């Protein structure tokens, strides 16, 4: 199957990018949910909850993303838990995304001036009501730029799913390269497609940061 790298191959890569986007959205949905709970736990008045959440976050943030993937894909398999590459990828990305988002959002929640808490208490609001009515609405504004920025990391992180055999954009690129053997063209195109997805998000994050005139919460990743 000797083929030259034509627009047909470019199209195959573009189609594979759908899976990249699907994985990213799934990771963000799952990770966002868990991360939100964790962020609340991190600032809750119960010390045990704070320590558990903090320990979990510190631990997960010390595990390479690829390791999480391998643990879920190969490790769980032998427990008889039926797991394919897609499920393993979604679970692993959810786990790591939750830890990083929890940290970002915790920072934003804590950046809301302490006076707000006092004012809420003097108005008779309990912890949940304070959160929902007072703190979170203000924190959301601050959280928007770094969260959008982190989406870029999530999209790039989905490339790891290639290493457990899931055919998203990176793996499709490798396959096309063996068929056409034009690594410069193939990986250049793959990089270009990722760039087209990620760069607008990066620009958006920067724009939001300038527009909302908030401080820079800096969480970088590979």
């Amino acid at each position, binding site marked *: *199957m*000797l*083929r030259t790298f034509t627009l*047909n191959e470019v199209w*195959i890569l573009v*189609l594979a990018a759908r899976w990249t986007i699907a994985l990213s959205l*799934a990771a963000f*949905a*799952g990770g*966002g*949910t868990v991360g*939100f709970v964790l962020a609340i736990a991190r600032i809750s008045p119960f010390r045990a909850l704070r320590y558990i959440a903090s320990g979990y976050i510190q631990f997960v943030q010390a595990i390479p993303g690829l390791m999480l993937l391998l643990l879920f*894909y*190969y490790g*769980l*398999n*032998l427990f*008889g*838990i*039926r*797991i*394919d*590459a*897609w*499920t393993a990828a*979604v*679970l692993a990305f*959810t786990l790591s995304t939750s830890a990083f988002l929890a940290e970002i959002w915790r920072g934003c929640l804590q950046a809301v001036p302490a006076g707000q808490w006092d004012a809420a208490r003097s108005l008779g609001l309990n912890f949940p009501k304070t959160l*929902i009515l007072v703190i979170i609405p203000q924190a959301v504004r601050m959280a928007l730029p770094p969260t959008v920025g982190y989406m870029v990391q999530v999209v790039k992180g989905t490339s790891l799913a290639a*290493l*457990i*055999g899931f*055919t998203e954009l990176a793996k499709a690129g*490798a*396959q096309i*390269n*063996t*068929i056409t*053997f034009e*690594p410069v063209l193939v990986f250049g195109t793959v990089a270009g497609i990722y760039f087209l997805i990620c760069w607008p998000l990066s620009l958006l994050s920067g724009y939001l940061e300038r527009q909302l005139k908030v401080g820079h919460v800096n969480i970088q990743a590979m």
Partner: protein
Amino acid sequence: MRGIMKSVLAMAAMVIVSLSAAPAEAQTVDEIIKRGKVVIAIDTTVPPYGMLDTNNQPTGIDVEVANLIGKNLKVPVELVTVNSPGRIPALLSNRVDMVVAIFSITAERALQVSFSIPYAGQSAVLIAPKTANIKGPDDLKSLKVGVTRGALEDGALTQMNPAGMNLLRFDDGTSVAQAMLSGQIDAMGGGDYGEIYLRKGAKGEEYEQKFPLRAAHFGIGIRRGNPDLLQWLNTFVYQIKNSGDLDAISRKFRNGQPMIPLPVF
């Protein structure tokens, strides 16, 4: 709040759906037929057994055999792509019913899975550029040799352990081929038939077999403790050998050569 609830529900639904969709726990032939489809694992990075055609659809000897299984069971086939290290986990986790992915029959693997009688065979060989002077394992000294992790050539070369050889294990055949073609490795372990012989490398090198590593036969892998399915598969393989179907498939993908003689056990 509503948005969060929706995400939670969506997440839970996703997990439930992907965990419960079409369980592949069928143990007998009847259960597979009753369930209405057969789920078979293939590898699409190993021509001519498993590869992608111009429409990015799986094709190759393994794929055709898998389709014949479905035809003889009279159920549709669902193909699941796995990589080399993922074959046994796919079976053990009930993700697939059987594996048809250049699954070499070894006693060690038989501790975890059951094999049908062979439906194909291949030698694992050492492949290198035509200009390289490699006659045997001793000539691999100070050379970088690439293999697919866990594959037959990996086992053979690891066991041979030629002095001074630098063995590089890659995740799949795609990476090994890319490494060979771009000159990152001096030699590779691979099959005695494959696409690499037709390709030219970055400097225009052409490739050939240098010496055999190990001969292997491929069987259809299933979970252990399943004598009913195993017996059916053996019957199936006997039939496609006898009827000439297997030879026809081999001729289609191996340049007109019929299938090599296959032992039975």
